[in-house]
């Protein structure tokens, strides 16, 4: 299951979505808006997406994870719009019979999502400035 939402991500629903009787382990990654970036104070992040392609790439990632590991279910939810500090922008849950595969697949999914899925975030700094993440080449190497 993959989805984009403008609302708060319901963490329990994401975990429930991958819970199956065959599963012994679930790994969930939640990305949250952090109050600092590159030494500057951040007040919120705003996400936009090339929606149909973002959904398509997320679905491809889900299939790729199933090809690489013996998983039961995968759920990927990304929030769009403004996400205040402390709230979740992305949640990825993976269930498997054994925990090793769930951890590895979840890590692969968030790492690859950050590189491949056409979603962009704008950083709102407490000094009032607003920048696209990575807008300044010098900061790209530091990007998490």
């Amino acid at each position: 299951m993959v989805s984009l939402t403008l609302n708060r991500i319901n963490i329990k629903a994401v975990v429930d979505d991958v819970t199956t009787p065959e599963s012994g382990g679930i790994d969930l990654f939640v990305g949250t808006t952090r109050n600092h970036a590159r030494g500057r104070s951040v007040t919120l992040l705003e996400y936009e997406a090339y929606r149909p392609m973002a959904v398509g790439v997320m679905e491809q990632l889900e299939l790729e994870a199933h090809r690489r590991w013996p998983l039961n279910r995968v759920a990927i939810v990304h929030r769009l719009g403004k996400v205040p500090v402390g709230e979740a922008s992305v949640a990825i849950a993976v269930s498997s019979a054994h925990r090793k595969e769930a951890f590895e697949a979840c890590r692969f999914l968030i790492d690859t999502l950050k590189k491949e899925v056409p979603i962009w975030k704008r950083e709102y700094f407490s000094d009032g400035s607003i920048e696209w993440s990575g807008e300044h080449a010098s900061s790209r190497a530091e990007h998490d």
Partner: protein
Amino acid sequence: MNVRLKLFSVARDIAGFDEQVVVVAAHADADAVLRQLVEAHPALEEWKGSLRLAVNCEYVNRSHRLNEGDEVAVIPPVSGG
């Protein structure tokens, strides 16, 4: 032939539009659309090396041959997650 050009994030902000129908030569490749865009908006030049292209919602090489009606998207470095 006509293709639909879509811009996102910093590319859209620099060019000042998010969607536009552009005319390219028959059998043009995706790079032709990008060159045309950068020519019209030279501020995009410094970004050119980091822009990826997608056609009909799939990433493509710059040499990808276009067809009439294709949706060509310019994808600046992504930063989701």
